[in-house]
C-alpha cells in the first residue's frame, strides 16, 4: 500500500446535538508517503501498554503516557488531546475513547503522536476550535457528581486556558480569590470566555444591563471600585 490515503472523516456523531462542543476535526493529517498505514491492532496494543489489563488508562498509566510523549500532564496540549479523544473525565482515557480518537489522529504508536504535537498546538489558535475546547473543559474537569465546577478547579482550568490570551486574567483571579463563590456553573464558565474576548481591558464597553451573569457584573463593579480608589 502506498500513496496518499484518503483522510475523509467518519460522519458526525449522531449525538452531536446533545453535546455542547463540536466534534473535533482533524486537518492535514496526511501520511508521508512510504510510512506504514495506521493499524488498529497496533493501536490497541499501544493502549494496553498504558492501561495494562484494564479497559481504561488510569492515573499511573497516564503519567507514563505523558512521559513517553514528552508532555507535562498539566500542559494544555493534554487538554487538546483529551478533547480530540472526547475523554469524559480528567485523568482517564477509556478504550473506546482511545481507539476512536487515535484512529481519527491516525496514531498507533508514541512516535506518531509525538509528530502530531505541533498540530495539536496549532488547534488552539483557531478561535472557533478554542471555544469548543474551552467549553469541553467544563465537563471534562467537573466532578461528575456536581453540577458546577468547584472554584479551585475552575481557577486552575482558567489559568490553563486564558492566562496567556486575557490581560485581565490576573485581576479576575484575584476577584475570585476574595469572592464568596464556591464554584462556577456552566453558564458562568461559558460567559467568562465570551467576556475575555469581547470586553476591553478598561471595561469601558461592558453593559451592566446586558445579559452577563451576575458573577461578571460583580467582577466589573469590584474592579471599577478598585481602580477608583
Amino acid at each position, binding site marked *: 500500500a502506498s500513496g496518499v490515503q484518503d483522510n475523509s472523516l467518519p460522519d458526525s456523531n449522531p449525538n452531536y446535538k446533545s453535546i455542547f462542543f463540536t466534534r473535533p476535526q482533524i486537518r492535514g493529517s496526511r501520511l508521508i508517503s512510504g510510512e506504514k498505514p495506521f493499524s488498529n491492532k497496533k493501536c490497541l496494543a499501544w493502549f494496553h501498554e498504558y492501561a495494562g489489563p484494564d479497559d481504561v488508562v488510569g492515573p499511573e498509566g497516564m503519567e507514563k503516557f505523558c512521559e513517553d510523549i514528552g508532555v507535562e500532564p498539566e500542559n494544555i496540549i493534554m487538554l487538546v488531546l483529551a478533547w480530540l479523544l472526547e475523554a469524559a473525565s480528567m485523568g482517564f482515557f477509556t478504550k473506546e475513547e482511545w481507539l476512536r480518537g487515535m484512529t481519527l489522529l491516525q496514531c498507533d504508536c508514541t512516535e506518531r503522536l509525538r509528530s502530531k504535537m505541533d498540530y495539536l498546538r496549532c488547534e488552539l489558535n483557531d478561535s472557533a476550535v478554542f471555544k469548543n475546547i474551552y467549553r469541553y473543559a467544563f465537563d471534562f474537569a467537573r466532578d461528575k457528581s456536581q453540577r458546577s465546577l468547584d472554584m479551585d478547579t475552575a481557577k486552575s482550568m482558567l489559568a490553563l486556558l486564558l492566562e496567556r490570551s486575557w490581560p485581565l486574567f490576573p485581576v479576575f483571579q484575584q476577584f475570585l480569590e476574595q469572592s464568596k463563590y464556591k464554584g462556577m456553573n*456552566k*453558564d458562568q464558565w461559558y460567559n467568562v470566555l465570551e467576556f475575555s474576548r469581547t470586553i476591553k481591558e478598561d471595561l469601558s464597553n461592558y453593559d451592566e444591563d446586558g445579559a452577563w451573569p451576575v458573577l461578571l*457584573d460583580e467582577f466589573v463593579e469590584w474592579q471599577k471600585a478598585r481602580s477608583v480608589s
Partner: protein
Amino acid sequence: HQFREYPFLCETIMIRSIFLFLDRTYVLQNSLLPSIWDTGLELFRTHIVNDSGVQKRTVDGILEQIELERNGETVDRSLLRSLLGMLSDLQVYKDSFEERFLVETNRLYAAEGQRLMQERDVPEYLHHVAHRLEEENDRVMSYLDQSTQKPLINCVEKQLLGEHMTAILQKGLSTLLDENRVTELALLYQLFSKVKGGLPTLLQFWRDYIKTFGGEIVGTPEKDKDMVQDLLDFKDKMDNVAQGCFARNESFINAMKEAFETFINKRPNKPAELIAKYVDSKLRAGNKEATEEELERILDKIMIIFRFIHGKDVFEAFYKKDLAKRLLVGKSASVDAEKSMLSKLKHECGAAFTSKLEGMFKDMELSKDIMIQFKQYTQNQSEPSNIELTVNILTMGYWPSYTPMEVHLPAEMVKLQEVFKLFYLGKHSGRKLQWQPTLGHAVLKTEFKEGKKELQVSLFQTLVLLMFNEGEEFSVEEIRTATGIEEGELRRTLQSLACGKARVLNKNPRGKDVEDGDRFNFNNDFKHKLFRIKINQIQMKETVEEQVSTTERVFQDRQYQIDAAVVRIMKMRKTLSHNLLVSELYNQLKFPVKPGDLKKRIESLIDRDYMERDKETPNQYHYVA
C-alpha cells in the same frame, strides 16, 4: 373731545367761541384749512410743548412727581392727570413721556427687586409685590393713559418676580409649606402664574419639596412608629395647598402624586409593613378615637397612600398576620369596617389579592356554624365535659403559617380535643386537623381571698395556672417539664403572670425578669377591682423575629413568582433576548425588583435547565421544554 381741565383748553374754547362764525362758515367750507380748534392745538404743540426746554421740564416734573408718589408721598394727582391728558391730546404722550417713564420704572423696580430680595423675607416680599402691582394699576386708572398698562405691569412683574423666581422659591417655598402659610402660598401661585415660566418653575420646586420632606418621613428609622400618621398628615396638608392655594391645578396634583410615589418607594418594604400595622391599630377593638364614619374616612386616606406603594405583597403579608390575630382573639372593632377595608383592597388590587383574606373571613363564619353543631353534638354525649370548647377551623394557605408548638395539655383538654376531632372528621372525612396551641386562649374561674374572679388568659398561661390546682409551689424547671412550653415562651408567660400588672402568681425571689431557679406560688392575696381580668401575654422582641420572618417569606415568595414568570414568558416566546425578557418581566411583576435579582433568577433557571443561553449569541435565551 373729551373735556379736560387745563387752562390752555379753556382759552382755546374761548377763542373758538369768539370766532365761531368764521369757524363754522368759511373754515368749514374750505377743506384745506384746519379748524380753529386744530390750529390752536397745533400752534400750542409747535411753539410750546415741543419746545425742548419746556418739554423736558414738564416731563421731568411729571416723572419726579410719580417717583415721589411711588416713595409714598402724596402728590397732586389731578395735575398729573391734566398734564398727561394734554400730552395725550397733543399726541406726544408716547414719544415724550411713556418711553422715559418705562425706562425709569424699569430702573426703579430692578433696583428695588435686588434690594428687597436681600432685605425682606419671602412672605413680606410677596405682599410687597402684590402691593406694588395694585399701586401701578391704580396709577393707570388715575392718571396714566390706558395704553401704558400692559407695558407697565409687564415691567413690574418682570423686575420684581421674573428676575427672582428661583431665588424666591429657594429662599421661601419650604418655609411657606412647612408653616402652612396658605395666604402667601395662594399669593405666590397667583403672582407666578402671571410671569412667563413661573408655574413650571414653581411646579419643579413643589415636586422637589414633597420628595425631600416625604423622604425624611419615610427614611428615618427612629421615627418609624409615626411614619404612617406623618404621611397621612403630610398628604392632607399638601392636598390642601394644591386645592386651596394652587387652584386645583392638574399638573400640581399630578406632580404631587408622582413625588409621593417616588419617595415612598425609596425605602423598600418598610412603609408597606407600617401601613398594614397602622390599619391594624385602627381596626382593632379598643380603638375608641374614631366613630364608624371617621374610621371609614381614615381607611380611605390610607388607601390613597397605599396606592403609591410598589411592593403590595409586603403589605398583604403583614395585613394578613394582623387580621388573623384580630379574628382569632375576637379583637376586631367592627365587622363592617373589616369588610369595608377588604372591599377597598379588592377594588384597588383585584380579587386575586384578597381571595385569601376573604377565605379567612369565610373560615370564621363556617367555624361559627360548626360550633353550633358541635354544641348539639356534645349535649347528646354521655359524659358532658365541664369545659366549654370553641374551635376555629383555619384552612391552611389562607392563614399565615404558624410554627406548630408541642405542649402538654391536661388530660381533660386532650379528651375534649379527641371528641371534637371525632365529631369533625365524622363530618369531613379525609381532612387533617392540626392544633395550634400558640393561638389558644381561655377563661379560668378562680377564687382568691378577696373573692371569685375570672381570668382571661392565653393557653400557655392557662397551662401554667392549672398546675397550681395540684400543688403549692413550683420552680421554672418543674413548670417547663410539666407544660412542655418552649423556654423563651415560658419565661414570657411567667413574667406576665408574676411580674406584670395583674400578679396572680408570686415569684421568689422577687424581680422583673424570670431567672433559672426562680420559684412560683399562687398569690392568694391578689386583689383587683374587676371581676373578669385580662392578663396580657407579654408580646416583646418576638415581634422582631415575626417581622423578619414575615418579610423573608415575602421575599421567598417573590423569587418563586419571578421564576414562574420567566418560565411562563419563555414557554410562550421560545426564544427571547435578555432585554426583552427583562422588560416583559417588569410588565408582569407587581413588586419592585432590581435587574440584578432578575438575572440571578434567570441564571438559576439556566442552571436548572429550564432555559438555555444561545450558543453563539450570549444575550439570547431559549426555552428548554
